[in-house]
């Protein structure tokens, strides 16, 4: 005799199952909410602590003055300028290289050993301590292996007009254009700092951009090819616009990290006390986290508690602003289907 499921029996089974599944759903919901709230809770605690300590110290002096030994006169003008310029340059350098590498890896590279090696490489670079990038930046960008120093083989061979001194090196105008001056080696300048930061954040930019590009369905591409366009045209007009929000996420996360880094920039040669605004991107500089770190280690309470907190508030405001721009861009270019 075949087993016959009566209506009532199947209803029983159905009911039991559904209630336990609903219960699981409810528990899971609570856990999920908790996980989101935990991060936000920590953020709130941090922000309240910082706001309480630093709020009254976010005054015009903070933005107009340079660091002083008297807390009431101290400000972070040069740090703010330095941070903004370095982050701007970092974004400028890392976007094309990062997105370019991601496009190459996703669209052009065949699945051979070289590609696998590059993949491995990039993942590995994401874990290198930031301070190592500082050392690398110092040698490669700051000093350029010393080949532009007086007496080196290159200088002798090409008879280059090296300027001596502490900020020495080769100074010239690129292609003779007067305001496009270049300084080699990059020394302790913002260009060197930005390049160091670019190296630091490049792995995350590449990985995030790859995920975004990978997420674009192949059907979109096939449609483009079917119309007879070239590979690059498909990428430029179809793939990239769809992947743009994801790429932007990677850029935001990376730039957020870069704006908060201290150690690599100090190693690479950023200063801590810079009582002037930069005249060009080749000038000495300092950044906000270095200033904050310096204040935290000073003995007076006004510095290590209040001014440091005020500095953090300023940094977070800049970050907020950057994020705001990114959100706006993300929303504007988001393509839904």
């Amino acid at each position, binding site marked *: 005799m075949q087993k016959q499921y009566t209506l009532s029996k199947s209803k029983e089974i159905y009911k039991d199952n559904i209630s336990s599944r609903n219960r699981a759903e409810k528990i899971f919901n609570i856990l999920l909410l908790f996980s989101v709230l935990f991060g936000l809770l920590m953020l709130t605690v941090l922000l309240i602590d910082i706001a309480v300590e630093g709020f009254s110290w976010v005054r015009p002096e903070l933005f107009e003055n*340079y*660091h*002083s*030994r*008297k807390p009431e006169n101290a400000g972070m003008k040069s740090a703010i300028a330095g941070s903004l310029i370095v982050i701007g340059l970092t974004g400028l350098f890392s976007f094309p290289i990062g997105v370019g590498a991601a496009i190459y890896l996703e669209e052009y590279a065949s699945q051979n050993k070289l590609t696998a090696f590059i993949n491995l490489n990039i993942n590995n670079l994401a874990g290198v301590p930031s301070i190592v990038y500082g050392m690398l930046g110092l040698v490669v960008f700051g000093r350029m292996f010393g080949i532009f120093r007086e007496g080196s083989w290159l200088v002798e061979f*090409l*008879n*280059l*007009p090296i*300027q*001596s*001194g*502490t*900020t*020495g090196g*080769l*100074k*010239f*105008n*690129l*292609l*003779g254009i007067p305001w496009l001056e*270049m300084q080699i080696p990059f020394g*302790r300048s913002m260009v060197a700092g930005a390049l160091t930061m670019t190296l630091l954040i490049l792995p995350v930019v590449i990985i995030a951009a790859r995920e975004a590009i990978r997420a674009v369905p192949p059907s979109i591409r096939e449609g483009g090819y079917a119309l007879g366009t070239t590979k690059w045209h498909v990428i430029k007009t179809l793939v990239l616009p769809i992947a743009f929000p994801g790429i932007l996420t990677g850029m935001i996360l990376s730039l957020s990290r870069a704006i908060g880094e201290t150690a690599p920039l*100090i*190693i690479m*040669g*950023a*200063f*801590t*006390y*810079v*009582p*002037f605004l930069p005249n060009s991107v080749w000038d*000495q500089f300092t950044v906000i986290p*270095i200033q904050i770190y*310096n204040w*935290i*280690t*000073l*003995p*007076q*309470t006004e510095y*290590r508690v209040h001014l440091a907190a005020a500095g953090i508030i300023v940094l977070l405001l800049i970050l907020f602003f950057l994020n705001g721009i990114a959100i706006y861009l993300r929303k504007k270019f988001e393509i839904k289907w």
Partner: protein
Amino acid sequence: MFRKNIVSLLLVLVISSLVLAACSGSKVTPAPSQPETTQVEPTKASEPEPVSSSALAALAGDVIADGSSTVFPITTAVAEEFAMVAPNVRASVGLSGTGGGFKKFCIGETDISNASRPIKGEEAEVCQSNNIEYVEFLVALDGLTVMINPENDWVKELSADQLAALLGDSSTIKKWSDLDPNYPAEDILFFIPDPDSGTRDYMEEVVEKVTGDKDLRQDENTTFSSDDNVLLDGIANEKYAFGFFGYAYYINNKDNVKAVPIVNKAGNAVLPSDETVQNGTYNPLSRPLFIYVKQSSILEKPQLVEFIRFFFSADGGPAIMSDVGYSMPPTGTYEANLELLANSLK
């Protein structure tokens, strides 16, 4: 085929830039291209008279300083005051640490190296091999302060021997009562600077003279930090704590920690203060702080000469020293420094 074109185009671009630079850029060579033992043109200022204030205001150029975090507040405070009389001089100060500062100094990247210890032999050799000559200036004294929790009422004074017994590597002291049977039988919690700081190095020298220990203790009751504020917090919050660090941190937190008078060579127990450190009665824990200035920069950068001169004038170091929590070196040091400067200008 196209690939070759692009590569050659890039090459042309790079080479043309370099060639343009070679042709158009003015060949700037330093006054004596070989270091610094030769005579400079007689027009270079070698007279010891001070420059007029309008000339100071007209001075421009940069001054690059780097090095110790201990000397940092002094150099930046002087730079801050100097900026008021010479606003166009751009003085930047870095924080690479004494060792890192010398590393940059000895390849010619900085004009001034802040140092919380004298230059070491191997560092001087590097400077020599790169033809960097320098002048050493004593700029301040830091009275290392030994600290205990305010509730600690049993320690009245300590001698250098006792310090060495407490802090040396071979120390067997764990509880306060091990040091003196009248003290409480509680574990001592040590808060000391971490193994790579100049403050600790100096204490190690003091300890070594007594016990021969070359290192300080490193056990589970010892907390290290490179941030003196953290050590301060530790000592302020633990009743049985003990530690030492720079005077500047003590003087700004007098309500939270208690300083221990140290028995000096004459046998008197002395607390650190501006006067006792300067006149030498607070010993042996007064450590000297230096700046090293590159000889060739003195000859090439008039703004640097004026900066150093300002440093050792009444408006420079002396005016800011107590603000930053350090003590002036023995009287006459700054005058001697000015003479050193005048001599190096010749």
